[in-house]
């Protein structure tokens, strides 16, 4: 059990002059789950990718079972029984499960692929995971969780002694994570050395034996789980002291007027129901948090209000904006924008920013009407507006001409929020607003929003699966589960723990998952 399967010493790595790993030391033993914990961008994935040969390290040594190795590409690593499940889904969606598992090394005889044998081997591998995914199914037709199983099966088909999982829970719902944990436990019992990359603290306690915290490319320390508690871990990870449990005081004032009201909203496509019977109100100057798991229907609800849900979905119900009924058939992002609704997407790279353009370009994009005469954009007006917004959102560096791709994640998010402030939104929908944002910038983002709420009576809908965020930022909390609003509470009446139980549905379920470990 104590045999060291992988040992990495003094790993250094830089990209184009920017150092991302500094003298990193890391080891993992056979039969242990070693969590590699850090904020986004801390260097977790890069570290493991240098081992796999995806990136080339500048210096450092890698020992596998006591032998010095250096892999030039993932294939070499896999042949030496080191394999990794990458964060981005790496499957070919048009091909079958079996072919995806054995891609690049399909068994063949005299140059001809042995399809029957391939399928048989694939079902063996899937069977050893306890997976029921059929080997001849086409990957594109599978659910996300099943695709992930295929990906794990592919990595396992190399019969690894070192097995790396990069944020495997990122796209999974809570139930599916339970299944993932079972799988990890099975592997641990088989004596595989498992590296479990995550930025979710609770997962460390759920699954890991040891935990290494990495911050800004440097190792903060390695700890046995038994010697850790949550607040300690948060401090190691962020480098800042934080109180473990958020406690809110009773400061809630019911707003006089509501900016938006939903009555009996439903959305579905054929048999697929996104959400049902949603009733809610958001007041002027109020932040309403909607807590729920991934897939609970939050994003879809937000997109409905913004008119961005694909037209293939059937929407029924009534929406009142500023007391006026809204024609849902004609609602589109451009109409919603004109009404005064802004939407901060969860997918910042694809839907939030235009990375190759300047801060100024991005900020005035939804706010042309404020900087134009006729159809002509007046440079001076644009610069004045943008200067004000940059100040409001505390953008760093405060340069309107800088390309957005050169900003940090947190500052990119400030640009996305800023553009809706520029558009003079009166209702702002924030979908997972601090995902991929470092802790320091998170607080700044909350403060920017709070200030607008206080001073300009902005109404905010905060959609989040991060319960801590909901506890910190919301004035009033709705819980959404399986497409329904199930609870309504005020922050001072509840706790993160209680919210978790609400979000998961039942207390027993939450307890049940813990006991599986």
């Amino acid at each position, binding site marked *: 059990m104590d045999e060291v399967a992988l040992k990495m010493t003094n790993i250094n790595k830089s990209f184009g002059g920017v150092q991302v790993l500094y003298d990193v030391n890391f080891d993992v033993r056979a039969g242990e789950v070693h969590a590699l914990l850090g904020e986004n961008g801390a260097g977790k994935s890069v570290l493991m990718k240098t081992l796999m040969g995806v990136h080339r390290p500048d210096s450092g040594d890698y020992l596998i079972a006591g032998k010095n190795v250096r892999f030039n590409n993932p294939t070499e690593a896999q042949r030496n029984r080191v394999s990794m499940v990458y964060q981005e889904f790496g499957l070919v969606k048009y091909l079958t499960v079996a072919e995806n598992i054995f891609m690049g090394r399909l068994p063949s005889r005299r140059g001809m692929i042995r399809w029957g044998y391939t399928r048989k081997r694939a079902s063996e591998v899937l069977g050893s995971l306890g997976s029921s995914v059929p080997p001849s199914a086409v990957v594109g037709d599978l659910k996300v969780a099943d695709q992930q199983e295929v990906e794990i099966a592919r990595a396992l088909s190399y019969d690894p002694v070192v097995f790396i999982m990069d944020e495997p829970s990122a796209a999974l719902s809570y139930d599916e994570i339970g299944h993932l944990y079972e799988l990890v436990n099975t592997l641990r019992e088989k004596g595989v050395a498992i590296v479990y990359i995550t930025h979710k603290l609770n997962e460390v306690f759920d699954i890991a034996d040891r935990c290494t915290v990495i911050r800004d490319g440097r190792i903060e320390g390695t700890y046995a789980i038994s010697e850790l508690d949550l607040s300690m871990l948060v401090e190691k990870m962020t480098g800042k002291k934080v109180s473990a449990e958020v406690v809110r005081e009773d400061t809630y004032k019911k707003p006089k007027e509501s900016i938006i009201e939903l009555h009996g909203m439903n959305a579905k496509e054929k048999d697929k129901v996104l959400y049902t019977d949603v009733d809610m109100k958001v007041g002027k100057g109020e932040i309403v948090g909607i807590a729920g798991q991934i897939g609970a229907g939050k994003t879809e609800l937000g997109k409905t209000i913004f008119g961005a849900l694909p037209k293939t979905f059937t929407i029924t119900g009534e929406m009142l904006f500023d007391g006026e009924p809204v024609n849902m058939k004609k609602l589109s992002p451009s109409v919603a*924008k004109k009404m005064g609704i802004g939407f901060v997407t969860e997918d910042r790279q694809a839907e939030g920013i235009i990375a190759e353009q300047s801060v100024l370009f991005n900020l005035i994009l939804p706010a042309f009407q404020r900087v134009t005469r006729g159809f002509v954009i007046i440079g001076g007006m644009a610069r004045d507006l943008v200067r004000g917004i940059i100040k409001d959102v505390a953008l760093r560096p405060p340069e309107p001409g800088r390309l957005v791709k050169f900003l940090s994640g947190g500052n990119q998010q400030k640009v996305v929020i800023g553009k809706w402030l520029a558009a003079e939104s009166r209702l702002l929908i924030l979908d997972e607003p601090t995902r991929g944002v470092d802790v320091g910038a998170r607080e700044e983002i909350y403060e920017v929003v709070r200030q607008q709420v206080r001073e300009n009576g902005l109404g905010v809908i905060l959609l989040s699966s991060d319960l801590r965020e909901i506890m910190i930022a919301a004035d009033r909390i709705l819980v959404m589960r399986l497409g329904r609003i199930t609870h309504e509470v005020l922050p001072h009446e509840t706790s993160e723990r209680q919210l978790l139980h609400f979000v998961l549905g039942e207390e027993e379920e939450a307890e049940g998952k813990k006991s599986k470990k």
Partner: protein
Amino acid sequence: MTTESVERRDKAGARGVAGRVFRHENATLGIILAAVVAAMAIATGGKAVAVRNMKMVLVETATMGICAIGQAFVILTGGIDLSVAGIAFGTSALGSAMMTTQEFQQILGYAAPVWQGIPAMLALGAGLGAISGLVVSRIKVPGLIATLGVWQIAHGVGFFITGGFTITRMVTPLKFFGQGFIPEGGFPVAGIIFIVVAVVCYFIWHHTVYGQSVFAAGGSPGTAYLSGVKVKNMQFSVYVISGLLAGLGGMIRTARVMSVSYSSFDGLELQSIAAAVIGGMSLFGGKGTIVGVVLGALVIGVIRNGMAILGADPFLESTILGVIVILSVAIDTWRRRGR
């Protein structure tokens, strides 16, 4: 405006004008153009740089340059327009058949004046472009395929009108747009049209809501859509503009040569893509400048003109064009990787 002007303002400060010129994104291209002109001047013993000849270059380049600007609109959204040659032929066939005094070709039964003929050409160009625009923006057919199809359709329309014959003897006033000078013996009209189109499009790109929306739709369709930009309308409109400008380009060539045959515009789509690519348009969309495209068109125009003076055969010209295109994209790719 936006990116460009802001950056310039921020950076300029202490550094001199020379520094600004060199740092400008089109500086390389300007230098290349100067070098090409110099090379041609030497090779032709000065003939290439005679004022008379320079005017000729501008006139000859006008058609391709105008089409390249249309092409640049499409490339800016991440699409491509292979239909420009077809549309230029189709519209020219219509226009020449309307305006010819050759009796058997007349569509209207009389030789139409230019104020009827030219708008008809532009309308047909825009209409053919609208087919691509509709198919691309509504059904999401790749631009490559849609415009390939429209290229064929437009060519077919041209054949239908001309019956495959060469049309000549257009009404005299048409000459003005291809061969005229303002004032007499001064600046060529075709060149003026080219420059006016370039200036107008520059203004549209950088100083209007529409232009900035096209940039946004090309840079990130998802972001543009969620910022309230009507992405589909942008995609539709660029093909219409490209079709319209192809019609305008066709008109200028028809007026210059005063004859139209089915092979008059062969290779125009490729030349226009080449000019846009040499001019620094990113084929992935969202990046590029009108100035670059104009310079790109002039580089090609100067080379073609020089080769013609030297009496080189047309295939050597196409070979050189091929090499230049590959090189300019290779340099762009290499530079982007270097960063």
